[in-house]
């Protein structure tokens, strides 16, 4: 058996390929010793990569880019890895059927947003999973599209995806943009309704990527290739509708039983044969050009002022652009 590789994941349905490859012994069939590590937040994922707590993680590119540049800790070698999932992020707002009907029937979405907001009696608090996330960029694009000013008309708060439902229930937030299955779960619990998401904002965008530290890749170059192959095989399994029930059962199992403790019904709804109440995620490990994969993210990150032209030179050397 090869050396241990610790891969960080969060409680999200798009972590499925790592969990499936582990549970179905795909990793061990490729001679790999992989340990999925469920992390409490994205800050922990980034710190784990920087301070030798993880060898890799399933994460969104903006956080990997900012971590590579040392914008939230020490700069470390993080390059684009294996694409794993596409889409799946939902934007939901607090409310039930009546609020949803009002939203749908109003063609002017700025007006619809203000009508919805008036029922809250406060500036809407919208949550994202981390500042440096695809979710923040997607929510920003959505608000801009409906002519709502993010900085003055909303309060953006940050919390891990698995806390969103509790925060919505407790009145801490009024909506969120998060990965699967949390948008679907909010709808199934009649807490919120979907207004947009990945598909309407950046169709088929790259969402999670397996990022390995340069240190691990340089030490085990052959294992990196086998890890990509194993994860690609698991991704194909996760896409097949005949496996949806078993994938959902695995993801909803308790963490001590190698699951993620996710709500099963919500997970079923975001898998390929789901009822598509929000966004369907898909798994695709095909490697595209940096422009197709990260172009829109990097442009948005420049616009936010997170990146400078000097950073682009560094990112180019690392293969991000």
């Amino acid at each position, binding site marked *: 058996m090869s050396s241990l590789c610790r891969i960080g994941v969060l409680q999200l349905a798009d972590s499925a390929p790592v969990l499936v490859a582990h549970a179905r012994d795909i990793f061990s069939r490729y001679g790999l010793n992989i340990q999925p590590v469920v992390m*409490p*937040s*994205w*800050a*922990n994922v980034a*710190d*784990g990569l*920087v*301070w*030798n*707590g993880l060898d890799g993680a399933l994460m969104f590119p903006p956080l990997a880019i900012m971590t590579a540049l040392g914008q*939230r*800790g*020490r700069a470390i070698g993080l390059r684009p890895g294996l694409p794993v999932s596409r889409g799946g992020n939902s934007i939901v707002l607090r409310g039930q059927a009546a609020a949803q009907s009002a939203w749908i029937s109003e063609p002017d979405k700025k007006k619809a947003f203000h009508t919805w907001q008036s029922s809250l009696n406060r500036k809407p*608090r919208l949550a994202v*999973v*981390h*500042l*440096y996330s695809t979710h923040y960029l997607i929510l920003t694009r959505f608000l801009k599209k409906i002519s709502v000013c993010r*900085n003055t008309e909303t*309060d*953006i*708060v*940050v*919390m*891990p995806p*698995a*806390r969103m439902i509790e925060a919505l229930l407790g009145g801490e937030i009024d909506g969120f943009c998060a990965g699967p299955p949390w948008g679907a779960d909010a709808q199934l619990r009649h807490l919120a309704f979907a207004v947009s998401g990945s598909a309407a904002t950046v169709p088929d965008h790259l969402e999670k990527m397996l990022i390995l530290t340069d240190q691990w890749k340089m030490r085990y170059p052959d294992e990196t290739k086998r890890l990509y192959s194993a994860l690609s095989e698991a991704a194909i399994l996760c896409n097949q509708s005949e496996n949806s029930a078993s994938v959902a059962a695995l993801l909803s199992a308790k963490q001590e039983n190698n699951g993620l403790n996710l709500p099963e019904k919500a997970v079923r709804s975001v898998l390929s044969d789901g009822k598509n109440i929000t966004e369907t995620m898909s798994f695709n490990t095909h490697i595209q050009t940096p422009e197709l994969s990260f172009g829109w993210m990097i442009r948005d990150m420049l616009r936010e002022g*997170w990146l400078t032209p000097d950073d682009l030179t560094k990112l180019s050397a690392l293969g991000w652009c």
Partner: protein
Amino acid sequence: MKVLLADENSHRAGALASLLEADNTLDVVMLHPGTSLIDAVRIHIPDIVLVDISRSDRDALDSVRALSASGLERPVALFIDEDDESLMEDAFAAGVCSYNVLNTPVKDVKPLLRSAIALYRRFRQTSAELQAARKTLSDREATDRAKLLFMKNECCKEDEAYRWFRKQAMEKSRKIADIAKDYLARHDRSTPV
């Protein structure tokens, strides 16, 4: 210097507070349960925040500088000591991290972080020992109950029952306690294992 301790393990936070309070140059504030990190930083305006790494609202503190909703004008940054990589790795492994509010010098933060690392390690070790002791007790109890049930079901004596469990364990390369738990799960309908 004001230090905010954010740890949901109140026992550990209390122990760390006692340790730090011995230094009369420090003003130690504990985070109240149910208060978010951001709110606590806004209310207490500490110079340093020592955080249990597993706190999920660390994400929010990470993003505080860029978000208008935070209401914090003072910069908050993850404490990084680039010259002492092992200190940072030790902190991560022990389960503690630190944020700087304003521009507290690195040299002032390091002793606090070192104290926290030592204490967190001690807690982790004690907790691991306690867990191991509980498991040993639970294993012993399950084995005794399984033996009694086996003796009743098979009308045999204790040494025969023990030999049977030991043989099963050897054949299956498993522990006697695990075989005993399986046996109870199959045969004992009265109480859960």
